């Protein structure tokens, strides 16, 4: 049986490893994620964001909490509902808006769209659309860490729907049989596009972990501190050579799959029920009860977002003449993930 970590309803901190500043930082990143995605959605409506638009409204705690537990030298494959992970790693709002708008200043310089990016200088591999391919990439990074005897850990996210694909299995089995330092975060937001989990699997996939030889743990995905703590412990296990962990973050996709999706297929009550569990409200309440005035923080973030938007809007679109450039890398020195400096993730334990 998979173990369960119920997210603390108590105002007190869920993790002794979080200082009050850390707990405020967690709120900041969640607010930043939501604010950026809401602003981007407006830009999309104004026709300034090409293609489609995806967001992670209501799931902010999953990527923010988990990423906050990772160290600078750890490596990440962040997914499409997990913008917060990029923010924790240090990607600025301006570059994210530029990314959405396909501008030269975006992380991919307009070559890939929306959340399909990762700043490799910050230790992140940009996701591909094919789900959950990145599970194998994360497994391979962990394999390299173990082969070289490094105290490092890899982490990746993926949704309930993607657990039906073969790569889920090949990654889980590979990581289990080689006992690799990798953390798999299953983001169970109840739907895969329009498909409910009932047509995706007969048994909650967290139960599969045991049959691959490692623990699976269900976490309250709307409690950012619970996500942090569960991930921190999983990372401790990884660094101690105890192998992978599957964390099932139970949450809800509060918006459509993408901008065009009106989500008719989701019962109103279900959305209402989850609105009560909003991860940002919960963390803000906690901090208020701890005596923190969050108003200035909200103000600061509003400004950061507005500045980022303007900076991005001022930036140029990519030069068409560069469209065929840089298909192959022919430089002398290898260009590696996390070259340059990944900022340290902010939490003290992260350095270990």
């Amino acid at each position, binding site marked *: 049986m998979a173990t369960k970590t119920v997210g603390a309803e108590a105002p007190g901190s869920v993790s002794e490893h979080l200082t009050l500043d850390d707990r405020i930082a967690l709120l900041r990143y969640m607010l930043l994620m939501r604010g950026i995605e809401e602003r981007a959605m407006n830009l999309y409506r104004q026709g300034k964001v*090409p*293609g489609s638009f995806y967001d992670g409204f209501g799931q902010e705690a999953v990527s923010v909490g988990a990423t906050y537990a990772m160290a600078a030298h750890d490596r990440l494959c962040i997914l499409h509902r997990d913008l917060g992970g990029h923010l924790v790693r240090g990607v600025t709002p301006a570059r994210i808006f530029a990314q959405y708008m*396909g*501008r030269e200043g975006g992380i*991919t*310089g*307009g*070559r*890939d*769209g929306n959340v*399909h990016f990762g700043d490799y200088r910050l230790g992140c591999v940009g996701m*591909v*659309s*094919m*789900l959950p391919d990145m599970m194998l990439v994360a497994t391979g990074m962990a394999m390299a860490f173990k082969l070289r005897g490094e105290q490092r850990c890899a982490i990746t996210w993926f949704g309930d*729907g*993607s657990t*039906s*694909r*073969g*790569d889920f299995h090949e990654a889980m089995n590979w990581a289990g049989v080689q006992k690799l330092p990798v953390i798999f975060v299953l983001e169970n937001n109840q739907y*895969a*596009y*329009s*498909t409910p989990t009932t*047509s*995706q*699997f007969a048994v909650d996939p967290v139960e599969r972990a045991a049959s691959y030889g490692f623990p699976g743990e269900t976490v309250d995905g709307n409690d950012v501190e619970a996500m942090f703590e569960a991930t921190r412990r999983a990372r401790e296990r990884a660094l101690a050579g105890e192998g992978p962990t599957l964390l099932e973050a139970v949450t809800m996709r509060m918006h459509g799959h993408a901008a065009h999706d009106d989500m008719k*297929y989701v019962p109103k009550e279900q959305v209402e029920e989850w609105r009560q569990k909003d991860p940002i409200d919960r963390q803000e309440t906690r901090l208020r009860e701890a005596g923190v005035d969050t108003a200035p923080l909200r103000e600061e973030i509003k400004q950061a977002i507005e500045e980022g938007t303007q900076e991005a809007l001022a930036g140029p*679109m*990519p*030069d*068409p*003449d*560069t*469209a*065929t450039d840089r*298909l192959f890398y022919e430089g002398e020195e290898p260009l590696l993930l996390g070259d340059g400096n990944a900022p340290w993730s902010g939490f003290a334990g992260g350095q270990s």
Partner: protein
Amino acid sequence: MPTMTYLQAISDAMRSEMRNDERVLVMGEDIGVFGGAFKVTDGFVEEFGPNRVMDTPLAESGIIGTAIGAAVVGLRPIAEMQFSDFISCGFDQLVNVAGKMYYRQGLPVNITVRLPSGGGFSGGPFHSQNPEAWFMHAPGLKVVAPSTAQDAKGLLISAIRDHNPVVYLEHKHLYRRVKGEVEPGLYETPFTARVAREGTDLSIITYGAMVHTALEATEDLDGASVEVLDLRSLVPLDEEAILASVRKTSKVLVVDEANQMCAAGAQVAAVIADKAFEDLDGPVRRVATPDVPIPFSPPLEQALLPSVDRVKEAAR
């Protein structure tokens, strides 16, 4: 005759044949209640029920593999990939199990694999690909790619009825942009080429979305009379129609939207260079997408996909 969009014609083909033949079912991700990512199966589950309009798990190998199993015991599955790009995840089942079964074992695999393909709308590197050449290079698969609403319907009905695995490429950019008269009821379109416009000075040989680009580019090309051949079927490839057109015009431009290397256009050009050399009085020119992934940002994407202007240029 009623006029329909290319997308409506695809829906009409499936709906008509599903009413006509209870062995036919559609399988795919989000095609039921949601009606599919592009609403091609909108209203289907209401009419045919969840057994014949099956929302599958997110598993492309599973979709192709189970469709093969269902086919060899008598069903006629239409397997939809949400985007053609995702066929990479079902590639093995398609080329190795479906493609080789009849040749090896004498057991035909009656499946139709629908691939919403092509770019032009900032879909980015994973929602814009044109994978047809991979399947032309995998013996045992038929490959078709309609450019008009009329053919979209007729080719799909033929594909569903064909006893063999048929890869059906439906171009996303044509879904709502292309309208046309479509015969009501059931009809089959043969897997042969179609002359989209008669001409005597130059043959443009193409298929899918590029048929429209070619027609537009040469509507008035300094008064030149340009023939546009719409291949419609890539496997089988209608070599006779290709050679006949070349014989007539002696000048050729081959256009496809896919990355140029080893594309369908390369095969067409090779066939001409081998079998119609004596009829040519100039090089076999090609226009295609350069060999890079399809970028997301409009200026980059537009710089790569064959445009009306690039085709005009090349046709001069």
